[in-house]
């Protein structure tokens, strides 16, 4: 089932009291979003960006001030939550604490009007099948309080899927779980999604989670959509500075540019194609190479203040007089050993790429390549 969101907006606070703007918060600017049938979409943003509000409006748990929502051809803008045929997974599971796992999963079926309700045998089969799917068939008699967080969230998923919803909505589904369980559940959800082909929309503030799970990611901030793109595009071609900064660690370089060279204290670097004036450029930690000698195109002296040799790469913190805040660089273990990096060592940074976002379209520079 496809989802079409058009011009949905929402403002919190007291309306129509003759006051102008005070006491009111714009939760959502008018938002448009088209979701294809069977797509898995991640809503990514910092807290207060409006992502949960949007999800709850799609669910019908909150009302938008304007705009419309269609599930396929069906206009559900004014349809009550209970008739929208959605499955909703809450961040803190929201399992019925006084019911055992079986009754929790069966709730949607047993709450149906008598005329439509399946027989108790059918309900039993369906519930056991769902519990098998979430690998909890041995836990049917347990109560929520007797389960771990990961197990509770799986029960909550089975419960949401019991009515075969057209649309599955998940609000920070793995937010309350520890890192390892989160990783496992993510993979499992992806798998389930490929198997069952429901359309789903999930909210997260975790960049990695959004990039790993989603077919497309919607990046939001301050109630606005900043970019809608596949994870790959999002990372490589961020639409603006916010997206670039939100998707990973960022280093800043600010200085005066004259004749395509940026100068900042005793540091300078070639910036091909950038006009004269004051300018701020950004770069990712992996876009920094370290060397013992400056190159003709980049003279950026730095000293090492911290070294974290854990993981696939070595994380190195760099400081210099000309830097406002320290830089973070990630280099290979091979480079780390070759340069014999220790704390306090003086090196030269070589930026392979620099990004600028003050132009209408973001621009990426390659300072080291000779044009």
């Amino acid at each position, binding site marked *: 089932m496809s989802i079409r969101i058009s011009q949905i907006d929402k403002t919190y606070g007291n309306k129509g009291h003759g006051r102008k703007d005070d006491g009111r918060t714009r939760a959502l600017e008018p938002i448009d979003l088209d979701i294809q049938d069977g797509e898995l979409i991640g809503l990514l943003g910092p807290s207060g960006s409006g992502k949960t509000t949007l999800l709850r409006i799609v669910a019908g748990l909150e009302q938008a001030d304007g705009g419309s929502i269609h599930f396929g051809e069906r206009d559900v803008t004014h349809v009550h939550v209970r008739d929208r045929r959605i499955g909703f997974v809450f961040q803190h599971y929201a399992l*019925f604490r006084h019911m055992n796992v079986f009754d929790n999963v069966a709730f949607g079926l047993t*709450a149906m009007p008598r005329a439509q309700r399946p027989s108790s045998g059918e309900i039993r089969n369906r519930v056991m099948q769902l519990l098998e799917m979430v690998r909890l068939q041995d836990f049917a008699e347990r109560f929520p*309080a007797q389960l771990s967080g990961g197990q509770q969230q799986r029960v909550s998923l089975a419960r949401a899927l019991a009515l075969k919803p057209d649309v599955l909505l998940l609000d920070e589904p793995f937010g309350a779980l520890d890192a390892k369980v989160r990783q496992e559940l993510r993979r499992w959800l992806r798998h389930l999604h490929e198997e069952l082909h429901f359309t789903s929309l999930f909210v997260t503030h975790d960049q990695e989670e959004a990039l790993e799970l989603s077919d497309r990611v919607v990046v939001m901030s301050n109630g606005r959509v900043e970019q809608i793109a596949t994870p790959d595009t999002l990372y490589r071609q961020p639409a603006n500075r916010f997206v670039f900064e939100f998707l990973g660690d960022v280093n800043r370089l600010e200085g005066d540019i004259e004749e395509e060279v940026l100068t900042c204290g005793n540091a300078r670097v070639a910036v091909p194609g950038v006009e004269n004036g004051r300018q701020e450029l950004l770069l990712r930690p992996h876009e920094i190479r370290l060397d013992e000698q400056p190159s003709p195109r980049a003279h950026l002296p730095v000293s090492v203040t911290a070294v974290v040799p854990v993981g696939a790469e070595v994380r190195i913190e760099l400081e210099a007089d000309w830097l406002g805040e320290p830089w973070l660089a990630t280099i290979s273990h091979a480079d780390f050993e070759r340069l014999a990096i220790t704390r306090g060592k003086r090196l030269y940074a070589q930026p392979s790429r620099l990004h600028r976002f003050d132009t209408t379209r973001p621009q990426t520079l390659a300072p080291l390549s000779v044009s």
Partner: protein
Amino acid sequence: MIRIGDAPRVRRLLIGVALALTALFLLLPLVAIFAQALMSGIDVYWQNLSDAYTLAAIGLTLLVAVITVPVNLVFGVFLAWLVTRFEFPGRRLLQTLIDIPFAVSPVVAGLVYLLLYGRNGWLGGWLDANDIQIMFAWPGIVLVTLFVTCPFVARELIPLMQAQGSREEEAAVTLGASGWTIFRRVTLPNIRHALLYGVILTNARAVGEFGAVSVVAGAIRGETNTLPLQVEQLYQDYNTVGAFTSASLLALLALLTLAAKAALEWRAARRETAT
């Protein structure tokens, strides 16, 4: 290192004092009630109990409880639901207003009702013209008792429902449940212990209320005397044994209430450890 109160002598002393005070202030009066009531033997006790006025007082007390408890049960649940599940202007004010019956003296409550519904009161004239008697009759007693006991259920439920939040109800509605189904199968099971506790407290107060009732009842023997009023009147008549006989009934009710409360708490605790 010795913590404060860890020394065996200090501990024994503290426990001893606590037990002695409990016996002196709580247990002794209770024993005294029954001792006084049975002072002239069990026959006199039964005789006093089967006194027509006393029987009428028992009947009236039960009537008040039977009306007050269900009304305040529904009202309390409704109020708690409203305050904890909805955002509306005046919500905080409403939450404060709930406490008024606790804050004012019951005698004042009685006087206010007298002012409103009495013969010279604001509504009294109209009521009189239509031949409806509220003051100095059972409807007045029920009204003030309703007023005095209305916070109990809501007060028990509001903190609990606030702590539990509305997530389970939201989950239920996304699963297609109707409002009534949600209340019956999700909300009610979650609040039932607090609800029962609120009902027990309401009942205890409805049966035992003296101040407010004495103002509006008018002390007509056999007609508007509830048990607490009956106790007082018998005592004024120098019928000590009779007064204590009625008092023993109230004490018995109180004991039953406490037992019911303890049983509930015990069951709740057992449930906690079981899960």
